């Protein structure tokens, strides 16, 4: 067996956490709480380790003999400045908040704006990419909900049955969403169990 110690830890921790959820009796519950807290801490450390790894990848790219990646230098500089400022000022400082509101927000919101163009182009090209009645229904549904979402139909309060029709149409996606969500839950259940049964051991590297 590969990585027996790690597998035992994963299975043991998983079973305790699971039991603690379904059978909330002491000491399982407190043990579960503790394990989750440890997991959160470890996720934090893993985040730091991965960030260091990210920096090392870009350092390698920047210092490569061939095909030097200059933008990687900007990444490293941006990181260094932010990290240094953050360590000195702490996250609650207004200047640190400005980094979020005046750098992250504009960039992320603008990327989201670009996504509007990307998705519009994707919608236009939908039938170029694939045909079939599922695509057709998808397109019709998207079109109808774009019109509904624009508020154009909601402006006509005088039409008698419009409200009922809109309510019925708005309820339609719920059924499909339920089916998808239940299916995903079943998939999550079996995937999680694969880890707890030791079939999947992604940590055994």
């Amino acid at each position, binding site marked *: 067996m590969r990585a027996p110690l790690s597998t035992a830890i994963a299975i043991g921790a998983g079973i305790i956490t*699971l*039991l603690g*959820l*379904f*059978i*909330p*009796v002491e000491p399982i519950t407190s043990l579960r709480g503790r394990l*989750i807290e440890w997991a*959160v801490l*470890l*996720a934090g450390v*893993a*985040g*730091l*380790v*991965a*960030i260091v*790894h*990210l920096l090392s*990848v870009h350092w*390698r790219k920047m210092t490569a003999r061939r095909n030097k990646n200059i933008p990687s230098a900007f990444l490293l500089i941006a990181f260094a400045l932010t990290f240094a400022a953050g360590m000195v000022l702490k996250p609650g400082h207004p200047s640190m908040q400005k980094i979020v509101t005046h750098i*992250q927000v504009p*960039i*992320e919101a603008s*990327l*989201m704006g*670009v*996504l509007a163009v*990307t*998705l519009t*182009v*994707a919608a236009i090209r*939908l039938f170029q990419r694939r045909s079939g009645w599922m695509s057709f229904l*998808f397109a019709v549904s*998207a079109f109808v909900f774009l019109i509904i979402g624009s508020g154009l139909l909601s402006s006509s309060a005088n039409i008698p049955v419009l409200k009922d029709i809109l309510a019925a149409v708005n309820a339609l996606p719920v059924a499909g*969403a339920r*089916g*998808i*969500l*239940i*299916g*995903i839950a*079943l*998939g*999550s*259940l*079996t*995937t*999680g*169990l*694969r*880890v*707890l*049964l030791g*079939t*999947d051991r*992604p*940590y*055994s*590297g």
Partner: protein
Amino acid sequence: MITILGVLGLGVVFLAAGLMIILRMTGKDRGQPAFRKIAAFDDLKKSIGLAVENGTRIHITLGKASLAQPFNPSALAGLAALDRIAQISSISDRPPIASSGDGGLTLLSQDTLHAAYRSVHAPELYDPGRGRLTGITPMSYIAGTLPIAADEDVSAHVMIGNFGPEIALVTEAADNAGAFSLAASDSLPAQAALFASAQQPIIGEELFAAPTYLEANRGHAASLQTQDILRWGVIAIIIGGALLKMVGVL
């Protein structure tokens, strides 16, 4: 306090686990179970083959779900797919790269690559630089993934994990680079965006079938069979419950 829901929940978990174990054991005698065709996975296999033959790269991106979060199974399914893809493309000149938007997931992707290469007796292929964190926040993860699509001679992108709809930016970049893209997410908005933008979108729980369709071990097939059995159980419960509710029993 022990509740009925808790006991029921535990029962469901034990039922699923039991089914997986039984199906896995009996599956050894009955051979590979039959599953319906999913064209996207057929195309993925072809793309992997072409990537291996052409000496181009395969990029697997695992999403941004933290391992400590309840919606991490999509990432776990992505890791299983990564393991399989790494194995079958180990003969390629350019081993695959894995990207993710969470620290824990990044480390697991490195571990998975390491384990996969060891399993095919080629540990020398392992390079931790091929399991990368591209960004720590959801959008910076996408921002960091875009250059991979554009610059790293990738011919096939496999996106299995938890994404937002912004993943469409990556599929578009892949499309512009003439690369194949297969995308699956457990997030509903992302699925909608991917349905329109990815070359081969995977809908809903099909994402959990990726390892099985990539011919991973019997455990994955048993897990898919269990899913099917549970599905019909849920359907029966829904219909029965509705009838009982209607007559006022429930």
